[in-house]
């Protein structure tokens, strides 16, 4: 069996050991992402910590949520920047 070398930098170490509690599945993330995306456009607390944790730990779901933010921003005629910044919650960014 081949042994392949990998380099582990600080970013990779961080992603390997990321705290993704509270638990949320990809299916549940999909079910809730529209609600979550509309919350990040507001000014108040976003809530839904499990969504923030999941998006921080799942690049695929995060990528899709980002597009949803862009689409919702285009519909509303607003800048998506602040909403994108709030997508992953306060601690992990």
């Amino acid at each position: 069996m081949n042994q392949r070398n990998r380099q582990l930098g600080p970013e990779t170490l961080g992603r390997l050991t990321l705290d993704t509690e509270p638990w949320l599945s990809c299916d549940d993330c999909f079910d809730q992402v529209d609600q979550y995306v509309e919350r990040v456009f507001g000014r108040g607390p976003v809530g839904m910590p499990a969504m923030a944790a999941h998006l921080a730990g799942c690049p695929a779901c995060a990528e899709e949520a980002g597009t949803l933010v862009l689409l919702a921003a285009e519909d509303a005629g607003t800048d998506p920047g602040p909403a994108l910044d709030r997508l992953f919650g306060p601690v992990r960014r």
Partner: protein
Amino acid sequence: MTTLDPGSAPLSPAATVEGVVDWVEALSMPGPRQDDAHRQLHALMLRAARRQVQRMQPVLNGVGTQLVEEIANQAADEAMMTLLGKLGTFEGRSRFTTWAYKFAVLQAATAVRSVAWRDRDVHLDGLDLLAGDDPQPGQYAEASDLADAVRSALDSELSPHQRRIMVALVVDDVPIDVLAERLGTTRNALYKALHDARKRLRAHLRRTGHLDDIDTQAGIR
């Protein structure tokens, strides 16, 4: 809330069925209004799919514009079928359009990743993990120590399955849906394995006193 009035956030022109829109009702009642709603919904799906594909353009190196458009159109078609099958699950916790977009976004993203990885191997073999690239003098010892601690934890704390999943997803950046397809499993199952593996690593590294340093380096602390 499925009804939107002109005072709420504006819809794109393609999304407007009437001045006051009730998507669920319009899509549910057979007749000309339903036909019109279907056309406008498909336009939304296509817009969302194209947006997702556009964002992922960098991973589609060498893929022609015709195939890119085919990906978007097929994703929109499939997303629309899925959405119509789940129309009764819309609970009004978001705008209908936001809820609808996610079906097309998911379909398009999955399709793009599949195309991007169709000719790439996914390795689930053993590996040696080294410290980070180009460490600065004085930093090498610490960086190497942390990498060694994580490597040791990967070997001692995880099952072989967890270790292979974690390395593929996090170190090799294999997209989760691509890996799921290759392994004949689901995105959910892989994310659960990853989540549990992270918990085990964190618990171990907390005991060995390395977790704070890793979090600090990663910018979490």
